[in-house]
C-alpha cells in the first residue's frame, strides 16, 4: 500500500477515535443531550471507506454514524455542534447525533430507524444510473439490518437494476444488547445470504484497515465498471456500550474476555504498529499526528461549546421547502 494512503488511514482512524473518546469523556457533563452511539473500536471500515470513496460519491448511514461521517470528510465542527444542539450544527440542532449530514462531501444523511437509509441509498444509486454518472452510493449499515425487510426489498431492487451501490456491513455481533444468535438462524452467513439475492459479495476483517481499504477499492472499481452492486461484510466490535459513553461489559450480555479479545485487535494500534515496524512512520511522526488531531478536536469542541443556541422559533422552521402561510 502507498505509504501516504496508509498514513491517511491511520490519521483518519485516530481522528475518529479521538473524537469519540472525547465525546465519551464529556458526555456525563450533560451538555450533549441526545442519544449518542459511539464507534470506538469500529474506526477501520469508516476510515477505509472514506478514503476509498470519491468525494462526489454519496453515502448514507444509521444511528452509529459519527465515524462514517468523519471518514467521508464531513465537517467535524458541524457534527460536534449538532451533538451539542447548537445553531452551527450540521442540522442546526434539529437532528442531533443520529442525524448527520454534509452534502458538500456527499454524506447525504444518517437516520435513527434501523435499515431506514438502505432504500434511500439505493434510490440515490438509481439517480446515478439514470443520469449516467460514475458515482457510487455507499450504504453503511450494521448486522441487524440484515434482519429488516427494508434491506431485502432494497437489495433486490439494486440487483435487479444493477445499480452502483456499495453495501458496507459492519458486523459487530450485537444489536443493542442482543447477540447474533438470538436474531439470526444458526449457521446463517450474512454474505452468502446476500449472494443469493444476486449480488456479488465479499468478507473482510474490519480491524485491518489496509485490507478493508483494498477490498472496498476493488469493489468500487467493479461497480464503476458497471458490475452492479457489491456487498462487503466486515467483522468488527464496538468497545463501549450500545448508546452512551460507558463500558458495559459488566451488565451481562457479553463478557469482559470477549471484549478484551477484540480490543487486542484494535485497528488503530494494528496499523500504527505496522507503520512503525516498516518505518513508514517513526515515533515523532506519530506524536505529531496525535498532537495535530488533539488540537483540531479540542478546537472543535471549544467551538461547539461556544456556539450559539438555535433561536427557539427555529423549532418551527424548515418543515417544508415550500411552506404555506401558517407553516414554516
Amino acid at each position: 500500500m502507498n505509504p501516504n494512503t496508509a498514513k491517511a488511514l491511520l490519521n483518519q482512524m485516530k481522528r475518529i477515535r479521538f473524537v469519540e473518546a472525547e465525546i465519551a469523556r464529556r458526555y456525563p457533563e450533560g451538555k450533549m443531550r441526545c442519544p449518542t452511539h459511539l464507534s470506538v473500536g469500529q474506526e477501520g471500515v469508516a476510515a477505509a471507506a472514506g478514503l476509498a470513496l470519491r468525494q462526489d460519491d454519496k453515502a448514507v448511514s444509521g444511528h452509529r454514524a459519527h465515524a462514517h461521517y468523519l471518514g467521508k470528510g464531513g465537517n467535524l465542527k458541524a457534527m460536534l455542534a449538532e451533538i451539542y444542539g447548537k445553531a452551527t450544527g450540521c442540522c442546526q440542532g434539529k437532528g442531533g447525533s443520529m442525524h448527520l449530514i454534509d452534502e458538500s462531501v456527499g454524506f447525504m444523511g444518517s437516520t435513527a430507524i434501523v435499515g431506514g437509509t438502505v432504500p434511500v441509498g439505493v434510490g440515490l444509486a438509481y439517480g446515478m444510473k439514470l443520469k449516467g454518472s460514475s458515482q457510487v452510493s455507499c450504504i453503511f449499515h450494521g448486522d441487524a439490518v440484515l434482519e429488516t425487510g427494508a434491506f431485502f426489498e432494497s437489495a433486490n431492487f439494486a440487483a435487479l437494476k444493477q445499480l452502483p451501490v456499495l453495501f458496507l456491513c459492519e458486523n459487530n455481533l450485537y444489536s443493542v444488547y442482543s447477540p447474533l444468535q438470538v436474531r439470526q438462524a444458526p449457521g446463517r452467513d450474512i454474505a452468502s445470504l446476500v449472494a443469493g439475492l444476486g449480488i456479488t459479495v465479499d468478507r473482510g476483517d474490519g480491524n485491518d484497515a489496509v485490507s478493508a481499504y483494498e477490498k472496498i477499492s476493488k469493489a468500487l472499481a467493479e461497480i464503476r465498471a458497471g458490475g452492479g452492486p457489491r456487498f462487503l461484510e466486515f467483522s468488527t466490535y464496538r468497545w463501549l456500550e450500545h448508546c452512551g459513553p460507558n463500558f458495559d461489559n459488566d451488565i451481562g450480555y457479553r463478557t469482559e474476555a470477549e471484549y478484551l479479545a477484540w480490543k487486542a485487535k484494535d485497528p488503530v494500534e494494528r496499523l500504527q504498529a505496522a507503520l512503525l515496524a516498516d518505518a513508514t512512520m517513526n515515533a515523532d511522526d506519530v506524536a505529531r499526528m496525535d498532537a495535530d488531531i488533539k488540537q483540531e478536536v479540542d478546537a472543535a469542541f471549544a467551538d461547539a461549546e461556544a456556539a450559539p443556541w438555535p433561536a427557539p422559533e427555529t423549532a418551527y422552521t424548515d418543515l417544508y421547502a415550500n411552506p404555506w402561510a401558517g407553516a414554516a
Partner: protein
Amino acid sequence: MSQTTFAQAINAALSEAMRLDPGVICYGLGVPDPKGVFGTTLGLQEKFGPERLFDMPTAENAMTGIGIGAALYGLRPVITHQRLDFALLSMDQLVNNAAKWHFMFGGQRSVPLTVRMILGRGWGQGPTHSQNLQAWFAHVPGLKVVMPASAEDAKGLLLSAIFDPDPVIFLEHRWLHNMKGEVPAGDYRLPLGKAKTVREGKDITVVSMSYMTVEAIHAADYLAAQGIHCDLIDLRSIRPIDWPTIEASVCRTGRLLVLDTGNLTGSVSGEVVARIAERCWDALICAPQRLAMPDFPEATSPALTEHYHVRAEHVAGRIGTMLGRPVDTAPLAGQRSHPHDVPGDWFAGPF
C-alpha cells in the same frame, strides 16, 4: 380544452411532467403493464422509456425509500400504489424519512416525491382494498395531501404535486377515474392548499373532498331547486386545509356540514369541525355536523355496502334537518340507474 376523464387527466399530467423535466420518473407495481393503472400510465413508457417509467417488485416500503433517495439525488419520482391499502407497508419511509427529511436535516434538502394512492370502493373491494386513510397523512407534519374531485383538479394538482419540492400524497378515488370534465391542455397547475367553492349559497357551508364532492354536488343541486342554497367547498387539499375559505363561508352561512370519505372517528371531518368550532364560534348558529363512513371497514358483499356509504340523499337529508326544513330525499336516490356498488354502468369488475 376538451372533455377528458379523470384517468386521462392524470395520464396527461404525468406525460406533461415527464416532458417538462427529464428528472420526473414514474414507477410502481404494474405502472407499465397493459392496463396501465386504470389507464393513467398508458403509453408513457413508449414515450419516455423504461428507465423513467418502470415496474416494481412487490416491495412497497423499499420503493418509497428508493423514491426518497432518487428525490435527494435531484429526481422527481412519482410512485403509484394501486390501492392505498398497500401503502401501509411504506409508512416508515413515508413518515420517518420523506416527511421529516427537510426538517430534521435543518432544511438542507427537500424530498420532491409524489405518492399516488388509489382509493378503492364497491364491487367487493372489501376491508383491505377500500381504506381512506387521508386522516393519517393529514396528521403528519411534513407531508402535503391532495384529494382531487374533478378531472381538471386531478391534472392541475398532480402537476403541482410533482413540481412541489415537498412530499405530496395524491389520493385518487377509483370512482372518479371515469368521470369527465374540461381539462386545460399543457402545463396546467393549481396551487396546493386552495379549496374550490363548487356551489355558492348562503344557507349552509358544506365541506367535502374527493368522491364525496360528487355526491355533495348532486345534493346541492337538488336542494337548490327547492330553495336551499349550499356553499359547497371542495377541499382539494387536505394538508394544508384552506382555512380562510372555510371560515369565510361559515361566517356567511352560520352552518357547517363536513363530508368525509373516511371512517368517522378521527377523520379529517373532525379536524374541520373542531377548528371551525374553535375559530368561528360566534358565527355558528347551530351545531356543526359531519357525515362520514361508519366506524367499520367496508365489507365485501353488495348487501353489506348498500347502506354503508354516505350518498347524496343522506347529505340532502341532513342539510334539511340542520335547517329545520325537512327534505324529501327519495327522488335523489331514485336518480341513480346503476347498482349501488359500482360508479357507473361502465364498471363490471373484476377490480
